[in-house]
C-alpha cells in the first residue's frame, strides 16, 4: 500500500469515528453526563499505546527513556484512574433500584436502551 492511501484510510477512519462518537453519545441522558465525561476521559488514556510503541524503539537515548517512562505512567494513571473512578460513580446509580423506589426511573432507562 502506498503512503498516500495509508493516510487517506486513516483519515476516513478518523471521520467515521467522529460521526460514531457523535451519534452514540448524543443519546446519553443528562443525569449520566458526569460519569460519561469521566468514562470518555478514561478512554483517551489510550495514548498509553503510543508510549508503549515508541518506547520499544527508543534506543539508548537516556532522556528519551525518561520522558517515555513518564508518558507511560501518565497514560496508565489516565486509564486506571479513569475507569475506576467512573465505576465508583456508576455503582451508586446501580445500587439504588435494589432498595426500591427507583423502579420507575429504572424502567425508563431500560426503555431508552432498547429504543436505541
Amino acid at each position: 500500500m502506498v503512503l498516500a492511501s495509508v493516510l487517506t484510510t486513516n483519515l476516513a477512519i478518523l471521520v467515521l469515528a467522529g460521526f460514531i462518537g457523535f451519534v452514540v453519545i448524543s443519546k446519553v441522558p443528562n443525569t449520566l453526563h458526569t460519569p460519561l465525561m469521566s468514562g470518555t476521559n478514561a478512554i483517551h488514556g489510550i495514548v498509553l499505546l503510543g508510549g508503549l510503541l515508541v518506547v520499544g524503539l527508543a534506543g539508548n537515548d537516556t532522556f528519551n527513556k525518561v520522558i517515555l517512562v513518564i508518558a507511560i505512567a501518565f497514560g496508565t494513571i489516565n486509564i486506571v484512574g479513569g475507569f475506576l473512578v467512573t465505576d465508583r460513580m456508576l455503582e451508586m446509580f446501580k445500587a439504588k433500584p435494589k432498595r426500591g423506589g427507583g423502579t420507575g426511573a429504572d424502567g425508563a432507562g431500560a426503555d431508552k436502551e432498547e429504543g436505541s
Partner: protein
Amino acid sequence: MSTLPLATSFLQNESFLDVLYIVAFALFIQGLRGLSGPTTAVRGNRTAAVGMAIAVIATLLQPSEGNWGLIALGVALGTAVGIPAARQVKMTAMPQMVALFNGVGGGAVFLISWAEFRRYGSSYGSHTHSLVIRELPSGAILHTITVSAGGVPTYVAIFSVFAAIVGSVSFWGSNIAFGKLQEIIPGRPISLGAGQQIVNLVLAILAVAAGVDLVAGAHSELLFIGMLVCAALLGNAVVLPIGGADMPVVISMLNAFTGLSAAATGIALNNTALIVAGMIVGASGSILTNLMATAMNRSIPAIIAGGFGGGGAVEGASGAGEHAGTVRSTSAADAAIQLAYANRVMIVPGYGMAVAQAQHAVRELTKELEKRGVEIGYAIHPVAGRMPGHMNVLLAEADVPYDQLEEMEDANQEFGRTDVSLVIGANDVTNPAAKNTPSSPIYGMPILEVSNSHSVIVIKRSMNPGFAGIENELYYEPETTMLFGDAKAAVSEITAELAHI
C-alpha cells in the same frame, strides 16, 4: 530487542494484531452505548475497560516492542498513583479529579510527540513523498515506516506537531482547572485585562509558526521545546482568566482536546485503535462542551475570551449595601414547622450542599417529611454541582430515589404548586437576575424558578455571593427567608426540630 517468550509467529501476525485493535474499538463503542442508561452504565464502563486491556495487550505483542523494564516501570508508577487517587477521591471532588486525569493524558501526548521528534532526529520533516511502505493490510504498523527509509512523511510530522501543541495546551490548562477547583489557585479570573487576548493570539501564532518550521524541516530541538513552551503558556493564559463558574465547560473542552490530540498521535503512529478512541472522545467532549455552554447561556468563544464573574463580583460587592436590611432570617424550628405542614416540598440542592457533605442529612430530612405525607421532589439544574449530572451522582450516593430527581424544565412547572422550596447551598442557578436584569453577567441563563413557589427557605453560610461572584436577588424577595449556617448542621437541626412537632 527481546520478544515475549510466549509470542508465537501467529500471535505476532500483523493481521491478528489489527483484528485485536478492531475488537478493542468495537468494545469502546459498545461500552459508550451502555453508558446511555443508568442500568447498563456499569456494564458499559467495564466493557470499555476490557477493550482497553485488549488494545494494550495487542500493542505489547507488536514485534517491534521492547524495553520491557521501562514499560514495567512506567505502568507500575502509573498504577501506584492512579488506583489510590481513584479510590480515595470524594464524590464532591470529582470535577477536579477528571481535570487531573485529563491533564496527564494530554501530558502523555506531548511527551510522546517529543520522544518521536528526538528519535527521528534529522529526518524529521524531510520531504520524502516517494517513500513506499511495504504492502500490508490496512493499518500497517509503525515499525515498517521507520525501517523503510531515513525520512519521515510530512503528514506524520504535521500530526505529531499538532498533537504536541494540543497535548501541551490540554496538560497545562487542565492543571490550572484542577488548581482552581481545588482552590489552590483563586477561583476568580486572573487576567492581564484587555491585552489578554492579544497575548493569547501571539502565543498561539508562535506555537503554530514553530510547528510549521519543524514540519518544513527545521531540525532544531530547541525550536521544538520552544513550541512546547509557547503551547504551555497558552494553556495557562487561556484558563487562568476564566472564572470558576465556567470551569466545567473548560474541563469538557480540554477533554475533547486531549481526545483529538490522541487521534492525531494515532495518525502519526499509524495506529487504528488510537485514531478511533481518540476521535470518539473528541466528538463526545465537543457535544458535552456545547451542552454545558448552552445550559449556562454562554457561548464558547465568550468563555475563552474570559473574565466572566470578574465584573459581576465587583458589581455584587458594591451593590450589596443597597439591599441590606431587607433579608429576613428564620430559625430551624420555624423552618421545621413550615416544612411539616407543607403538601409539597422541593429540595433545590447546590454545590454548597455537596461541600458541606449534607446530602445524607438531607436524605434523612426528606425521609422524615415523607413519613408525614409530604410529597418530595429534588429540582436539579443542569449545571448543579459543577458538571452536568454531578448533583445526580452526589444524591445517588445518599440513596435518594431516582424518580424524585426532577430536571429543570419539569421542576419549573412544579414550583407553582410547591408550598416550600428548600434551597440548600444553591445560588447562581436560582438567581432571578438571570431573567429580570439584562445587565447581569448571567442574564439569559436558564434558572430554577424557585420564587414561583409559595415560600422559599434558603440555607446558606453567609450572604457572600456564589461561585460566579454575583449577588442573588432571590434572598431579598418577600417570600424568602434565610436560615444561616452550615448546610449539614442546619438540615440536621431541622430534622431534630421535626421530632418535636
